[in-house]
């Protein structure tokens, strides 16, 4: 079944590079961006499946595929995928997060055809048998131990999402709960593959040195005959109830000083106020002259580090403040200072120059994200898969540039309120070791891992 391509959209992405989105009749998307500065290509396959598409009791399924997809297929024996890629000098990796999973091949330009063939093969013909699944299950449990059980920051992330979300699937970790990882059944694993690994669930992104017409022919040749899958409808349309009370969790850990992670409920990345909060995050802790950094680290010396991050999720998520206390200081003192700074910003809008500073930093970040082929492909793939249109990589830059001082004060007042936040505190083991969860509406054990889980190892 040979199918023809339809050009759906095009836009400039950076200087001298145009991205174009095509679609095959079976629903497969293809975004091309030709850049001939180096004889290499970034070939990424993005699937519209992430941890949000899992169910309680089977968390970690999407991430497990990030491992299984490098295994045996009908025409490739175990290990052959990696050997074929490495023989070219290329590299392969993958990442899973809440809204997506993607597979990355970095290849010499001359080996693009090999990459397309390999990706098409594992979309259709992955062999899911007991022995390789068990082997990868062991690897994933060790990955979880390294990133969560033995890593205080991983634990803080997981607990924050588990407490902040009561209903939405963002509440469980992308890597999955340990007991779920151990219990995922082979029939369920096979069913997940049949459901989500289909052309109408995928967008291929190719950036680099190639001929577009030849790539269109190549992809049509290898994917054109694949029937579309039946994707679950209305998946992920769960609405998290509005948070009305502050939630706090404390636990002892083998650390030197208190660590604090605060998450304020924030809008999804496509909503208008997301860009404003991105500017707020920069003003709080995104640069050496940021308000919280100066107050906590430099002037007060009550913290050794502070970081602000707004998660780029499709649905409403969190603006997160991560702080490590300085010796002799504690989380409660730091929380008090955070409250003072937020109150000041809400009461009196920042000067225009301060907002312009955050915009200048955002402009630098925007261009930095488009410097290398992998980064460019990741930006295109994320906006296409999470937000439905790769062109939003440009509109976000425009939204950031349009933020005003009044916008900043308004969103601080609207979003950064105590009743909309969740706080997780890790304390040194020989200090206060009382576990305290003061929110009786949160008694489940689910959460979310905000760290994209890569394949790791040699990558």
């Amino acid at each position, binding site marked *: 079944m040979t199918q023809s391509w339809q050009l759906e959209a095009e836009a400039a992405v950076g200087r001298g590079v145009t991205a174009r989105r095509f679609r095959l009749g079976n629903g497969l998307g293809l975004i091309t961006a030709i850049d001939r500065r180096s004889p290499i290509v970034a070939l990424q396959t993005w699937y519209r499946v992430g941890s949000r598409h899992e169910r309680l009791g089977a968390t970690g399924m999407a991430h497990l595929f990030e491992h299984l997809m490098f295994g045996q297929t009908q025409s490739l024996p175990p290990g052959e995928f990696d050997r074929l890629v490495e023989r070219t*000098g290329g*590299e392969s990796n993958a990442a899973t997060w809440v809204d997506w999973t993607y597979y990355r091949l970095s290849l010499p330009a001359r080996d693009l055809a090999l990459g397309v063939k390999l990706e098409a093969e594992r979309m259709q013909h992955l062999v899911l048998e007991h022995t390789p699944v068990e082997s990868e299950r062991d690897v994933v449990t060790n990955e979880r131990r390294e990133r969560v059980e033995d890593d205080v920051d991983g634990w803080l992330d997981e607990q924050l999402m588990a407490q902040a979300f009561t209903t939405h699937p963002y509440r469980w970790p992308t890597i999955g709960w340990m007991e779920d990882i151990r219990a995922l059944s082979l029939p369920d694993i096979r069913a997940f593959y049949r459901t989500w690994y289909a052309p109408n669930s995928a967008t291929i992104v190719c950036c680099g040195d190639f001929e577009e017409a030849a790539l269109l022919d190549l992809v049509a040749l290898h994917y054109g005959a694949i029937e579309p899958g039946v994707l679950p409808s209305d998946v992920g349309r769960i609405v998290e109830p509005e948070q009305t009370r502050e939630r706090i969790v404390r636990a002892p850990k083998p650390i030197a000083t208190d660590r604090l992670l605060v998450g304020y409920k924030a809008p999804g990345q496509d909503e208008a106020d997301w860009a404003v909060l991105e500017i707020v995050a920069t003003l709080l802790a995104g640069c050496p002259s940021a308000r919280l950094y100066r107050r906590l680290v430099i002037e007060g010396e009550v913290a050794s580090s502070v970081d602000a991050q707004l998660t780029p999720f499709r649905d409403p998520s969190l603006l997160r403040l991560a702080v490590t206390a300085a*010796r002799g200081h504690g989380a409660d003192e730091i929380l008090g200072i955070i409250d003072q700074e937020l109150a000041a910003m809400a009461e009196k809008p920042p000067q225009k120059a301060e907002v312009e500073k955050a915009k200048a930093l955002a402009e630098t970040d925007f261009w930095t994200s488009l410097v290398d082929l992998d980064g460019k492909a990741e930006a295109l793939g994320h906006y296409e898969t999470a937000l439905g249109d790769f062109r939003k990589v440009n509109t976000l830059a425009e939204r950031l540039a349009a933020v005003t001082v009044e916008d900043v004060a308004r969103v601080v007042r609207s979003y950064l309120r105590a009743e909309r936040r969740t706080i997780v505190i890790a304390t040194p083991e020989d200090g206060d070791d009382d576990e305290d969860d003061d929110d009786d509406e949160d008694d489940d054990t689910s959460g979310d891992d905000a760290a994209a889980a890569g394949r790791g190892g040699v990558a």
Partner: protein
Amino acid sequence: MTGPVVIIEPSPDTPLVWFDIAIRGGAAADPRGVEGLHRHAALLARRGAGRRDRAELDETLDNLGAALEVGISRDALSLSGLALSRHLDAVIDLAADILADPRFDEAEHARLLRETPQVLDEIRDDDSALATRWFDWLCCPGHAYGRTSLGTEGSLARIERSAAIDLWRREVVADNLVIGLAGDVDEPTAARIVARLVARLPAGARPASTTMYEPAVAGPIATPVTPGRRVILVDKSDRTQAQLRVGHLSIRYGDDDTAALAIGEAVLGGMFSSRLMQEIRVKRGWSYGAGCALRRSRLPHWFEVWMAAGIEVAGPAIALTLELLADYAANGPTDDEVDFARDYLVGSMPFHVATARQRMQLAVRDAVFDLPPDYTAKLPVALAALTPADVRAACARCLSPASAVIVAVTTAEQAQASLEAAGAGTLTVVDHDEY
């Protein structure tokens, strides 16, 4: 005066310019007992220069959407900048102030001395960083690279502001710099910028190179003068894994065996299909990752294996690693493995030099190592000329598993018996916050 080594990689594809200014010397040149001095001097220089104090310098850079960051390696200090090209001149002025006219403010000196021990705390909270810190200390007692770039609680107490000023005056001279520029900048502009960066620097010769060995500084556990295999268990509570490091002193980057050992390293632990990854992760599922590498440095440095094995298999993982290492040192890779790894390394080079910034950074690093700036970029030529016998001979010369040092950050109560049973050498248990 010969002036700085200058590397320029123009590329107009984004309106950004990166620059790296390397000041040869680095943490390996810290005076004995005053470890952390180079780091301290560089960070202090960044905290106020010319007519701007720290806050004014930060504010000015942020307003330009720019960054100026200090880096510390064993071989060099660095001042790295990123600027929108329309603001490049303004950012270069700030960098020139830091190089030529740092304030070395008294209050910032005292504040930095209070801050640095807290970086030690952060390392102790991070098992992987902690394993690396202990391994660096113990791998080859007396070696310059065994000196911690961060310092210890004791050495930090000995850092004087005047010593930082003297160090800066001695080392920040034009002849001692390697300056790289990449991005939206043409060659005439780059030449003008380099001239501005060095215009106000004092005259002075490049300082003498770092001495490789000095008597070991007293530490938390005895460090034998003669190398031999031993295990250090860094005890930390509640671990579910063991962060493992296995290694020994090997060659310098740029040694005659560099290309051959690069192939040897790839076969043993530099690819997903490498022996360590296959045996540890794929066949046994003992660790998420497992790999090895020669640390790239100007002087001979460590060849190191790493993994994070489940605590219940820490001993078997060490035993298997030593067995693999011993077999590899004795027999080396097969002909097929050499061909495969060579294809991988040659084919991967375009990815390491794909952007102007990558090319500039590699060339700056090579120059700091006193190698030709295109040494790494030309490695594929050397790789192509090697035979499997050359690689096996290099592995035999460069790998010495009998003198490997093993560091395990884990919980002694659960892991000690397993590690002792591995028969890897004399085992010493230390508390994780002793160093």
